[in-house]
């Protein structure tokens, strides 16, 4: 029984090492920071098209950064491994989860965007949207963290869940949007900070190896 547990632990340790380079944290931090910069763009007198263009551009840049960072910086230092069925099951679960979350998010955006109240419930659409956002973020990041065996995603999920309801709350009760940028920027900088520290530590611990 003991050696069974140890082999599982060996496999788990090898799998978890794939997330120790901090690049996922940097990527997710950048996505949230993009939402923060979106609040600044809202205040500028630019067209919706340009605003969306900038937003998508930064998202693509973050994705590109992660892909290139993995390919040219961390993979040559850490090496690569194929986990077979073990990795495939984990990846499939997360892909299904992200697809479901995207679909639900789209439905929620269509249902709750715009002002006014929800007729049946008599509560603000913005509140319902915010509740939906919190639940979605906690469930998606929580389950992804569990499926991928990547516990930092639990913290990232909480940091993603906070800004939107807090922003709505402050706008509603203090009638100001002055706090919008820091509300989004602070959690994103926490995630980015963790990612950068992990990345620097990774570079120190894993020198480039010339293979045989």
């Amino acid at each position, binding site marked *: 029984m003991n050696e069974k547990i140890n082999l599982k632990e060996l496999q788990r340790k090898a799998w978890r090492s794939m997330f120790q380079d901090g690049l996922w944290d940097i990527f997710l931090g950048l996505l949230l920071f993009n939402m923060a910069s979106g609040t600044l763009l809202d205040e500028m007198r630019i067209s919706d098209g340009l605003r969306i263009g900038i937003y998508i551009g930064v998202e693509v840049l973050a994705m590109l950064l992660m892909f290139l960072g993995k390919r040219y910086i961390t993979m040559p230092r*850490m090496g690569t491994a194929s986990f077979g069925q073990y990795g495939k099951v984990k990846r499939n679960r997360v892909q299904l989860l992200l697809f479901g979350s995207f679909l639900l998010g789209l439905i929620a955006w269509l249902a709750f965007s715009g002002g006014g109240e929800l007729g049946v419930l008599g509560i603000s659409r913005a509140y319902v949207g915010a509740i939906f956002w919190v639940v979605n973020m906690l469930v998606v990041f929580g389950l992804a963290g569990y499926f991928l065996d990547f516990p930092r995603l639990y913290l990232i999920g909480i940091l993603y869940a906070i800004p939107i309801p807090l922003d709505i709350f402050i706008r509603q009760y203090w009638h100001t949007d002055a706090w919008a940028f820091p509300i989004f920027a602070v959690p994103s900088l926490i995630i980015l900070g963790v990612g950068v520290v992990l990345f620097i530590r990774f570079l120190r611990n894993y020198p480039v190896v010339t*293979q045989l």
Partner: protein
Amino acid sequence: MDTPETSSNLSPLTDVDRVIHEPARLSIVALLYVLVSADFTFIMNQTGMTWGNLSSHMTKLEEAGYLEVEKTFKGKRPNTMLKLTDKGRQAFTAYRRQMTQFFDEVPE
């Protein structure tokens, strides 16, 4: 005084596969047993071995027919992929069984 019967009780240990039994090679084989394949750098980082050490153990495992080594290039960089052969998997399974059996039978 040892009797022939006592010596035969030790035979599972003396018959053990010495290629796998060496601790460094055991850690390589155990790691590759739970993976489909991995490259040289990954194994080196996971086992904490030096380049030369891993290289010499890799050669011994390859000579025993337990390891399949594929040398390719990733862009301009050489890449060495390691994979346990069926013979290697069977040998590790047999080793596990043998060791478990031996230690299970040792009285407390």
